[in-house]
């Protein structure tokens, strides 16, 4: 494993203003350390590219700077986790926990995403151009997630706030034990989870959805009028003793 100094020495590899890091050659810790160091020593070198990912874990985790990072290839667990400010584009598919606990910034997955994409995210925008598997947006707390394909079972479980937009279908138990996150699904929903119900689309929802589709790079792919909205019936999390038997 190389230290940051060695990395800088060996890899000024800037091609057309893009700093290219070969993950197989230079290693994960060197990559992430260099990304973290940017915060203390900012420069105008804000375009980064990571190549030879080979499904590695924890690529570009904990970035806290306005960088534009393109990850070429498929990633393993937790790519772009805890992201703040950066735009991180995965030119491939993402493993479990992509953009987990994101704070701000944008993460774009060109392919599919594995389970618990955007889990516990507090802010920012996650765009998945393919499908997302189970538990997408589980316990989301303010993140916006736009999935161009379909999502798997138990998505938005205990989701607290933020928006989940799905252009395709949703699997079983959507929004189980939901708090105040808003869910918009264009296709079918296999089943709704406990305390999740369909709600009326009011003008403010069409407006919000239009903005989400635009920011989620899905403008022209879908129209807000095609979506249904799901949210919390608010019978579960504000505990009512009368409902005890249904808990």
């Amino acid at each position, binding site marked *: 494993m190389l230290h940051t100094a060695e990395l800088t020495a060996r890899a000024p590899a800037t091609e057309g203003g893009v700093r290219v890091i070969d993950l197989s050659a230079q290693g994960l810790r060197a990559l992430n350390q260099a990304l973290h160091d940017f915060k203390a020593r900012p420069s105008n070198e804000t375009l980064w590219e990571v190549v030879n990912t080979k*499904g590695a874990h924890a690529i570009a985790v904990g970035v806290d700077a306005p960088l534009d990072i393109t990850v070429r290839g*498929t990633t*393993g667990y937790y790519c772009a986790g805890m992201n703040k400010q950066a735009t991180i584009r995965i030119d491939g*598919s993402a493993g479990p926990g992509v953009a987990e606990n994101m704070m701000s910034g944008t993460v774009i997955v060109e392919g599919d995403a594995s*389970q618990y994409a955007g889990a516990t995210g507090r802010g920012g925008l996650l765009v998945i151009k393919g499908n997302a598997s189970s538990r997408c947006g589980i316990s989301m707390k303010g993140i916006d997630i736009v999935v161009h394909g379909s999502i798997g*079972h138990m998505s938005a479980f205990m989701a607290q706030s933020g928006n989940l937009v799905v252009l395709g279908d949703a699997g079983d138990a959507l929004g189980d034990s939901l708090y105040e996150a808003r869910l918009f699904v264009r296709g079918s929903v296999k089943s709704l989870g406990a305390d999740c119900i369909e709600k009326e689309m009011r003008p403010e929802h069409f407006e919000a959805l239009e903005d989400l589709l635009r920011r989620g790079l899905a403008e022209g792919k879908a129209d807000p009028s095609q979506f249904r909205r799901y949210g919390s019936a608010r019978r579960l999390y504000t505990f009512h003793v009368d409902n005890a038997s249904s808990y």
Partner: protein
Amino acid sequence: MCGIVGLFLKDPGLEPRLGEMLADMLVTMTDRGPDSAGIAVYSRPQEGWAKITVQSAGGDFGGLEAALGTALGGTVTVTPKDTHAVIELDRDQVAAAREWLRAERPDLKVMSAGEGIEIYKEVGLPKDVAARFGIAEMAGTHGIGHTRMATESAVTTMGAHPFSTGPDQCLVHNGSLSNHNAVRRTLKRAGKTFETENDTEVAAAFLSHKMEEGAGLGEAMEATLTDLDGFFTFVVGTRNGFGVVRDPIACKPAVMAETDQYVAFGSEYRAMVGLPGIETARVWEPEPATVYFWER
């Protein structure tokens, strides 16, 4: 955790490289299970012959070939590989050989028996286990590997996966079962015997029992969804088949890739990055509570 890898070849041209590809996949999954590792390799059966793979803690197979050959009155060859040895014999003498082993060589543990299967498993890092048994040099039609991070029973050779509880059958598991004691009792009453306290051995025996009762591989795997409780991603091998099933919650990871040349399974995508044509393979996650199987 635990790591699973599997490879089912469609292209016979890749068969000489099965062991090499599978060993690479197995070693990539080391950090999911550094306690022990095991691998089942299926090769093309030789007409009329069968194989029994046995394990001896001390690797002591001296005199086995002669003694077993005399007892059976037929041709027997024994090929030792580190702590394991492959006994090749007449297909009709497998039952007699196993009875003789039980009586005369109780120090030897039977890892697998069948026409195509060989199982090698030991405690230690996957790269060491693969090297000790020369897995990379093996040819075959399909194979399954497992790296174990133990949760339900001790880290021992017999607690490592794959588990084989029927002829040419094997099963590996990522997860943990919660009703394995109850299922084990039911299977014992039906005549099944168990070598360990391990939950996965129960799943393997459950499938073997279903298939003995006449179920096909797919049907037997369907039954795990109703009768086994807990977390599981199972990968199963038979003489001519390869199957995958995940429990309805499906939190144990699974990725599959298919090309014209093979079907591959990995706990993670990175296990498959070395396979030929992976860049253009169809890659997907098996759905929860859905049985997938391929047979030739």
